């Protein structure tokens, strides 16, 4: 007896909660990078090494969320927004899928491990990508408590307590007011 196969179409849907969590994380991180470029010398040095008007984005494939940051002046940065199509981007770093972004932003995998496991796609100069990863690491160290930040970065640095506490307060404050 011939058997009829049953075909059906599935639209697998969206994960609204995870998307919202990542949107908030990326939004805050974008503003924190802007703040850190005004507060921390090491971040300023990294931005100084990037070309003028250098724009980079970090986000999730295929349709975001993203944050876009542009170098402004000699060593500072400006958070441009969330829309990646609004301007040309020199360096795009994207997680291949939402779950990969969740693994990193819930600190179960740090950026080097995510890269080693091929979860992150970099479109642009690798040397600049390394600078951006160093900036992201510094910002994460400021934003997160030591226990969590240890999971998020490859090596947790030994900074003077003053640098950590004072700069952390300033970065949080500036991130919230967007300055």
């Amino acid at each position: 007896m011939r058997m009829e196969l049953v075909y059906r179409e599935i639209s697998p849907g969206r994960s609204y909660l995870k998307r919202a969590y990542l949107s908030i994380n990326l939004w805050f991180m974008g503003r924190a990078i802007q703040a850190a470029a005004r507060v921390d010398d090491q971040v300023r040095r990294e931005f100084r090494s990037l070309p003028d008007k250098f724009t980079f984005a970090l986000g999730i494939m295929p349709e975001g969320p993203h944050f876009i940051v542009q170098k402004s002046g000699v060593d500072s940065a400006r958070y441009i927004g969330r829309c990646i199509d609004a301007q040309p981007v020199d360096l795009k770093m994207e997680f291949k899928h939402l779950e990969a972004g969740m693994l990193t932003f819930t600190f179960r995998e740090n950026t080097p491990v995510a890269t080693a496991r091929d979860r992150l796609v970099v479109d642009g100069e690798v040397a600049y990508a390394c600078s951006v990863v160093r900036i992201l690491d510094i910002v994460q160290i400021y934003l997160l408590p030591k226990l969590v930040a240890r999971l998020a970065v490859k090596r947790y640095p030994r900074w003077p307590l003053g640098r950590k506490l004072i700069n952390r307060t300033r970065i949080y404050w500036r991130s919230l007011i967007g300055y």
Partner: protein
Amino acid sequence: MIPIPAFFEFECPVKTHCGHRALDHMPFELRAMDVAKPLLIGDVPASHAKRWRPVVNAFRDSQMTIGVVEEIPTDDPQAIVRQLAAIYRDKDCDAIVAVGQGPFIDMAKWLNLVVSTGEETLDAITSGQAIPRTIKPLAVIPSAAADGYEVSGLLRTGNEAVASVNLMPQLIFIDPRSVGQPDDIAMAETALMALTHGVETFFRSDANPMTAVYARTATRLALDALHQLSGIGERGSDLAWTVAQAAALGGCALGCGPCSTTHAIGQAIAAGGKISAAQAAGVVLSYALEHRAIANNLDNDALWGLLCDGDHYARTPDSQRGSAAFYFLRSLLNDLFDRTDGQIRRTLQDAGLTREELQDVTVLPDPLAEEGDTGDYATIMAHAWDGRPLR
């Protein structure tokens, strides 16, 4: 120890995604191949075990619509392939994602040939028509209960067989969520097949340093799994995952190369229905290798080096390495026999085959098999029947 021929070619177009959340990479990989709507097909065991669920979940947030056909039987491949090809074309699908094992994956490869070339049967291909390089994307999600041919470039259906590197799936995904948890017997059979693929490919006539890498790793992983299953080694929580990797590596090692004597005999004995092809190949393996060693057609040192660690290898005198290897393989089967209450057979006699039935077994001239002599097959089978060494 690794054979380096004066000339060789090697190609393995399979991109492997293996490990934690490996399936989640699938939408990205398919998008990179310009795929907009994949057709997800699953065989009966995979559908019953809900192994396609994590695959569907991997497409969340991918903006892709997927076509799904589940519970596909494998008893009438030609009719099924025709139906699936009609669905593929009518619904504008542009890639195949196959969740399953064994003959079902052969069917998926055949479906890919049909939708890529327009040929409804394999006649044109078997009579010499080339398989196009630009075949449609095929992603395979194997389980830990595989026949080891899933990742290879071999397509077998009935008496017809086609081999091409272009038939190898472009993508495979071995994710702990999708390999399933088959019973010990199924895993042991998969590991035995992977071991056979590994060992036989290592000593194949067209073996080269590249195939040796795959073959050696497949052999080591298969042995590791078999040791765990036989109770010699400590059982790890990732046993099913190890078995699935061993099978995939064995398939990569096999590629589209010629099949071995062990495979031909294993398939012929399994046709009688008393023992599976994997178990038959596992039983026959040591006798086929010993037969080759007697004909001075096997490097005993290399065989023992492949099967054991450096310490054991160094402690075994040169002249005893061949016999140590054959003893090792038979002893492994004995342990598995004990551990599984006789469900993994040590000899063909254990499977209930009689000498008369064995004489009736005809090893078909496999179109893909390396040349073998009927007399050789009979000798190997006779010794594998009662477990008597050849010398």
